[in-house]
């Protein structure tokens, strides 16, 4: 299977197999004008199977969101067909407007213009809590 190489753009690599579609949705990539390739179940020596997303344009991507969904991803920035930067992702300490508090008793449910902020309170179990009401975030995946 051939996917054209990218001139300028972003490659999200080492996505855990099965998570690419969710990441595609959460990053809002369907709104982009450029070509976006989702490659699923690619053979990987390290992971067995992995997914890859290739974005054929130099667009900003939300590293916090990617780190929250899949902290083992790597992000490659391509310029003039060359890899100019390879970023490893980790679980972000804070998430701003990435996930939203679902507690109906939380102030975020009524206060206008209030950012939804979650803090990583348990790294091992990947638990985030709302900074206002301390409600645990539901797992995205």
């Amino acid at each position, binding site marked *: 299977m051939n996917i054209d190489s990218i001139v300028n753009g972003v490659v999200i690599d080492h996505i855990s197999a099965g998570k690419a579609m969710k990441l595609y949705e959460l990053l809002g990539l369907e709104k982009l004008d450029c070509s976006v390739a989702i490659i699923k179940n690619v053979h990987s020596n390290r992971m067995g199977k992995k997914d890859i997303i290739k974005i054929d344009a130099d667009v900003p991507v939300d590293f916090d969101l990617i780190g929250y969904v899949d902290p083992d991803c790597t992000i490659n920035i391509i310029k003039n067909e060359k890899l100019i930067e390879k970023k490893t992702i980790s679980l972000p300490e804070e998430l701003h407007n990435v996930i939203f508090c679902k507690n109906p008793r939380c102030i975020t*449910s009524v*206060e206008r213009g209030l950012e939804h902020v979650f803090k990583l309170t348990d790294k091992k179990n990947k638990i985030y809590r709302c900074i206002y*009401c301390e409600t645990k975030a539901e797992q995205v995946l």
Partner: protein
Amino acid sequence: MRHLIDILDLSKEEIDELCETATDIINDPDKYNEVCKHKILATLFFEPSTRTRLSFESAMLSLGGEVLGFSEAQSSSAAKGESVADTVRTVSCYSDIIAMRHPKEGAPFVASRVAEVPIINAGDGGHNHPTQTLTDLLTIHREKGRFDDLTIGVCGDLKFGRTVHSLIAAMSRYKNIKFVLISPDELKLPSYVKKDIMQKNGMEYYETRDLLEKMGELDILYMTRVQRERFFNEEDYLRLKDSYILTLDKLETAKKDLTIMHPLPRVNEIATEVDTDPRARYFAQVRNGRYIRMALILKLLKEAENEH
């Protein structure tokens, strides 16, 4: 700017300092009756709570200060749709310190991020109520003279009862504290409190449905009300509200120096016959609420002044 949003915002040393100031106020109230002259406390109560509001107002008036505010959202600009942040920015211009109660969890924290004066959380829904916990701590301090080596029974609504969760969090910093958790199955202490606070801090606890089972071991018995407003379903409330009623009979096996506490108001979980037992300290606890709030207002105002 220093605020009090969560009881754990205060260090153990600061809690000791507040208890010492409160004790000094109790011993020599005249010394303090003008220390907040020309200072204004705003009480912003977006939901009614007569007891807490009056205790704050009484505290400020006893310090020689003035009070202003509202006692329900309908009489504030919140009824016109104003945000918490805007209300607090405005009231910051009219007052030196704000005590705020709000039905939404985290509202006082939002206030603290925009306020130009200290914010005291006077209760945010079922979340935090740190001045109630300070009241409880002062009562323990005065009745027992220590915060270590205590067996504390907490009885009633342990699921929704924020005072219990905050008390457990506050006591988790002291040595050799054992909790006896007495509740019906439906109102048991949430597992996250057991896991994140009790197990994490190596606290010993024992769960039982029987109020009498460990009565003889308790140094403190903390009774709570089964709160109607925390239920979504009236049937569940009616079925559970009378689960645990403390009577003089039930105190037969209790220690002579047991301290019976209750955040009040009570419905019928403590029979009125218990009120005259010297171990019943819940009205002394109410009085302590005024003194510890006086100490807190003084501390936060002093720190705010030093910042300027």
